[in-house]
């Protein structure tokens, strides 16, 4: 299922990435970069929700705290990509490790509330630790990203960087899902008791999934401040966690690539409707409700059933929870 094995798909993706880089303007490139970054974080959430049935309402924590870590580090050490990106991934992983340790033995609503609590704790710390995080104002005036001699501060480089990250992260997530570890994750969603009887350790599987998802979300978070030239407490807030779940459902749970469609749809509605009316939240809520009512399998699921039997056989394994 890796892109390398499907040259046609790989070519299509390459063209799809290249086209905007050639023609889109500054604003649209930054907007697309944001879609790809948020989409990457949402895709990592899909590993937990779609494959593991672990509905986390705190996924903004690894994403947002990694964004802060990258921004704070860049203020004193510069925006070296080779520093910022691994630091973000490591931060996301560390945050996810804490969350993973807490949720190991819970499930369903307890898991939802525990992740929500942890996310709120993260937000409280970011919001009140003004000396380091800037509190409600957040952090501005970040140095530009750089890779060796090249400066990656213009919209086109940022867009290509985000696209590269999205592609790499999707490849990693797909290989995770296809590997024994990812299949075990599906197993504990479907039949936890039997997995235990087969000798699988449910806590270890969950913890591994949390680490993988946290690392990907963290890597995405690391780029986020440099695209917006700003990072604020909203990037850790639980409404972003909830929005990520919304995006995931709009895109389609369990498909991985649907996450990008979901984040594109959501951010487009938010950006364009908010420029016409103050009531954009109303529209966002409506989109949300209509998705659940009309397209419970998301855009990805809708496309799939349009294409019909073609995709059905191949993707039978990764239906969402």
């Amino acid at each position, binding site marked *: 299922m890796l892109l390398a094995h499907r040259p046609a798909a790989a070519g299509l993706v390459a063209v799809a990435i290249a086209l905007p880089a050639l023609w889109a303007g500054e604003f649209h490139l930054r907007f697309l970069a944001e879609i790809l970054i948020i989409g990457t974080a949402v895709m990592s959430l899909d590993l937990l929700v779609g494959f593991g049935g672990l509905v986390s309402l705190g996924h903004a924590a690894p994403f947002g705290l990694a964004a802060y870590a990258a921004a704070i580090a860049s203020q004193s050490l510069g925006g070296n990509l080779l520093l910022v990106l691994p630091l973000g991934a490591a931060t996301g992983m560390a945050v996810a490790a804490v969350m993973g340790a807490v949720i190991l033995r819970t499930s369903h609503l307890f898991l939802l509330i525990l992740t929500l609590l942890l996310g*709120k704790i993260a937000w409280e710390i970011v919001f009140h630790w003004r000396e380091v995080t800037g509190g409600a104002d957040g952090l501005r005036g970040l140095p530009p990203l750089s890779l060796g001699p090249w400066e990656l501060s213009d919209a086109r480089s940022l867009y290509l960087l985000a696209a590269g990250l999205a592609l790499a992260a999707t490849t990693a997530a797909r290989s995770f899902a296809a590997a024994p570890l990812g299949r075990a994750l599906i197993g504990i969603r479907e039949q936890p008791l039997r997995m235990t009887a087969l000798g699988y350790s449910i806590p270890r599987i969950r913890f591994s999934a949390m680490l993988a998802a946290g690392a990907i979300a963290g890597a995405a978070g690391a780029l986020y401040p440099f695209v917006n030239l700003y990072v604020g407490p909203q990037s850790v807030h639980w409404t972003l966690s909830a929005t990520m779940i919304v995006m995931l459902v709009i895109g389609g749970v369990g498909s991985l690539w649907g996450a990008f469609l979901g984040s594109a749809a959501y951010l487009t509605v938010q950006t364009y409707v908010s420029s016409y009316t103050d009531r954009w939240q109303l529209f966002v809520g409506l989109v949300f409700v209509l998705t659940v009512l009309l397209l419970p399998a998301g855009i990805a699921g809708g496309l799939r059933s349009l294409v019909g039997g073609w995709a059905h056989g191949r993707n039978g394994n990764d239906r969402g929870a």
Partner: protein
Amino acid sequence: MGYALVQILNALSFSALLLLTGLGLSVVLSLMNFINLAHGSFYLLGSYVAVYWFASGAPWWLAFPMAFAAAALAGALLERFPFRGFYARTHLMQVLLTYGLSVIFADLMRWGFGAQILSPELPEALQGVVFLLDIPFPLYRLFIIAAGLVLGVLLWLLLDRTLWGAVVRASVSDRGMVEALGIDTRRVFAAVLVLSAGLGGISGALGAGMLAAYPGLDEEVLVLALITVVAGGLGTFRGTVAGALVVGFALTFSKLWFPEFANAAAFSAMAALLLLRPNGLVAPRQRQV
């Protein structure tokens, strides 16, 4: 001494509010396995009703039944569509639907009532302070504690001690059997949801005198109510009481002890609690196999 007493009463009044809000959430959760994230909207609607009612000059005590009625009406409409179709769906889908609705209602209420903080003009009977060991304490908070106690007991009697409560509980454990007895379980579930929404509205009306009413309060209250219900162990009556006390006291006292990181401390305590008791304070014992 008096200071401690006042803080304990503060915590109790907050707990009473959490109890009423949490009970609304937990009756639908425990009885119908339906998780309603729009419950915060019912609360805020109740708050706004109370603010406008107190300002209107009509008999003040009618504000509470009015808030109950307004939220219950909203609940009844929502129950017909779309809630009814979601009772059997997964929690994830229920969460998404009701969260989406809460976003819509939040925006509608901001549209209708404005974005500013509205504090109600409390009726004279509830204004003022009483002196407890020489320390002044707002009378209104005592009123909240009393109201929470009375309504809590009434609800417990209704669900645990009446035939109607028995029908509700039976509908949950064996819907087919109850239908076979000639009872329309759809109407039973609708009634439970209307009751839950009404509870949300009346707790909003009570809370308005303490927390005021403003956009975003719906989410804050919802999250605290959710934590209350879950910390209590999902749905048992005693559990929700225990959860409300724990959350109310944790938040009140962490504000005293760690003013800067009050919420972080309280949430950490709650997370620790759930770590130690993964199924909440009062959990029905379940066998795995």
